[in-house]
């Protein structure tokens, strides 16, 4: 049995079905980001200086690699969820909306992927 009205069925509109999951995922990732971002900021401030040697030495530590990878993954995820809602709210033209959402997703996968690759290179590279 469908709860949608005949008009709603004809127009192909109505619930997108996954609004709650989207909202919930945004909250969960935000909770994870509080300690991760604060760890990153405090560690950066605790370095003797922000020169190459100090920064690289810090990021090459196993615990830094792990936390920094978790940070960029969660950041990419949370940023994607957030900006997706912004596009959905303000871009009403169907074609432009799909194109924007596609670009947004590619950008986030690219930024997340490049960040992880860089961190792994720092951790395991020569």
């Amino acid at each position: 049995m469908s709860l949608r009205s005949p008009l709603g069925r004809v127009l192909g509109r109505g619930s997108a079905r996954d609004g709650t999951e989207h909202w919930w995922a945004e909250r969960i990732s935000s909770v994870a980001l509080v300690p991760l971002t604060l760890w990153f900021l405090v560690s950066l401030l605790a370095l003797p200086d922000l020169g190459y040697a100090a920064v690289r030495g810090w990021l090459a530590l196993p615990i830094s690699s792990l936390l920094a990878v978790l940070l960029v993954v969660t950041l990419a995820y949370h940023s994607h969820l957030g900006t997706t809602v912004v596009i959905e709210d303000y871009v009403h033209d169907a074609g432009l909306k799909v194109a924007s959402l596609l670009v947004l997703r590619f950008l986030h996968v690219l930024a997340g992927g490049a960040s992880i690759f860089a961190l792994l290179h720092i951790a395991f590279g020569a």
Partner: protein
Amino acid sequence: MPVRARPLSPHLEVYRWRLNMVLSITHRITGIALSVGFLVLMYWLVAVAGGPRAYESAAAVLASPLGILALILWTFAFFYHCLAGVRHLMFDVGFGFERAQRRRSGLITIAGAVVLTFAVWILLWHGAHS
């Protein structure tokens, strides 16, 4: 029946400006700014992985006057979004909905973000000149 272009949510222009509304809009704007900042974080991480020369050139860009200004704004955006996010999480679990509480947590969010941004940059300034 002709289809008329009806106003779609969110139509912000019909409301009088209120503190909580400004806070909520700022939360969204800082979120967008931080998404752009994520690209800068990626650039910085790739530069660290790229070696001393790549790092020096990235650091020079970020330490330029315009770079510093952007980083200060991103620091504020981060603290604001973080504090306002916690405030929203508090609302989500059902706390702080009273008028006076909303106002107080809102003002704490703004003041906290400003104070923490100052604190970080005073520390950075101090570190660079000692």
